[in-house]
């Protein structure tokens, strides 16, 4: 009976949060289907961690979701870099690669993968529409310093973007 109640709570929170969590991950990944898979993994981790299931569940889910998304993004970026190296030894890019590389989204994602993790997490969650208080709670930062952190993160983003692609 007790486990049914636990399961009900977990599934209620899954219903309430899944879409938001999947969207956070989809923001940094090219493939929405992969984002949904990773969102399920985030909930699995959460369901196995009783400490994460308190009042701060939402903050925990956001934090782990953005980190999972950025980790996957970095892996993806490394894979792409390896492929571009293979081009020299005869690897032909797929039409999907060609199409995707033209998109501005990929530039932004590459920059996010290159800057400091904490700064990338902050920018992604901010674009998701989280308030300063929610950001502070999700990333375990002092709410009074969020503005400063955000400004530094934006500066780092701008600097890295211009270094790679110039002022556009």
């Amino acid at each position, binding site marked *: 009976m007790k486990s049914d109640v636990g399961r009900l709570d977990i*599934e209620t929170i*899954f*219903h309430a949060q*899944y*879409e938001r969590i*999947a*969207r956070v991950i*989809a*923001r*940094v990944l090219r493939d*929405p289907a992969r*984002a*949904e*898979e990773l*969102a*399920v*993994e985030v*909930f*699995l981790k959460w*369901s*196995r961690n009783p400490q994460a299931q308190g009042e701060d569940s939402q903050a925990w889910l956001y934090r782990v979701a953005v980190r999972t998304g950025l980790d996957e993004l970095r892996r993806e970026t490394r894979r792409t870099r390896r492929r571009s190296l293979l081009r020299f030894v005869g690897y032909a890019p797929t039409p999907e690669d060609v199409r995707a590389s033209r998109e*501005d*989204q990929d*530039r*932004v*994602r590459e*920059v996010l993968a290159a800057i400091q993790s904490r700064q990338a997490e902050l*920018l*992604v969650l*901010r*674009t998701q529409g989280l308030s*300063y208080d929610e950001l502070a709670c999700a990333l375990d930062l002092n709410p009074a310093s969020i*503005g400063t952190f*955000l*400004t530094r993160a*934006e*500066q780092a*983003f*701008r600097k890295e*973007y211009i270094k790679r692609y110039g002022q556009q």
Partner: protein
Amino acid sequence: MDSNRDQWVEDRLASLYPASDWQPDTFRGLAQFRKQREKVRNRNRRWGWLAASAVAAGLPLMAFPTTRVFAQRCVSACVGQTTWVRNLFVGNRPSSAPSTGYVTPENRKMAPDFVLDDASGKPVKLSEFRGRVVLLNFWATWCAPCSLEIPWFIEFQNTHRDSGFTTLGVSLDEGGWDAVRPYMDQRRVNYRVMVGNDDLARLYGAASLPTTFIIDKSGRIAATHVGLCSKSEYEADVKAALNEQ
């Protein structure tokens, strides 16, 4: 507060919006979530059963001396096969003498001679026991299998002493006589015990305890037993050595 935000950066980040026709499918996600949780739960349950079965099988096996000897034999046989692997990783450390059955007289090696003081301070020289069969047991007070064997050796000493048999014990306790003497008194050990050292243990290849040698009347090693052995095996070896001319 937001007026300070960098519009240029915001415009770039705004391009990250997923395609407008994409909508996360909560029901599909939930089905996947339930499936994965069930898989994890089953895996944990399997490991639990496996651990419980191992304990259930191990407990009766270790509860009785006969089954314990059998289990130890099985482990020794497996470990024996992998000696070369162990040597590969741990290097050329002094290895234990291999257990042997009863060796035919022409294939026996001489037991290295030694002189050690017994509990009363009298020197014991192995070569002085020529003409008698000697059971030479390397042991220690902290070694549980050794404690099982000692009553057997006491009994052998009582039974076969007059037929030309002697038991000798060499303790490898780091605590020396302070550890060995109370133990001997408590167990009423009726044979001579000496405190040995690493050099002697290395000379005999007694890297693990207990290690027991049956030495024939000519001072040659007739049998070597590493680890806990059954009483009947020791007795058979002793009798065979006593029956030799």
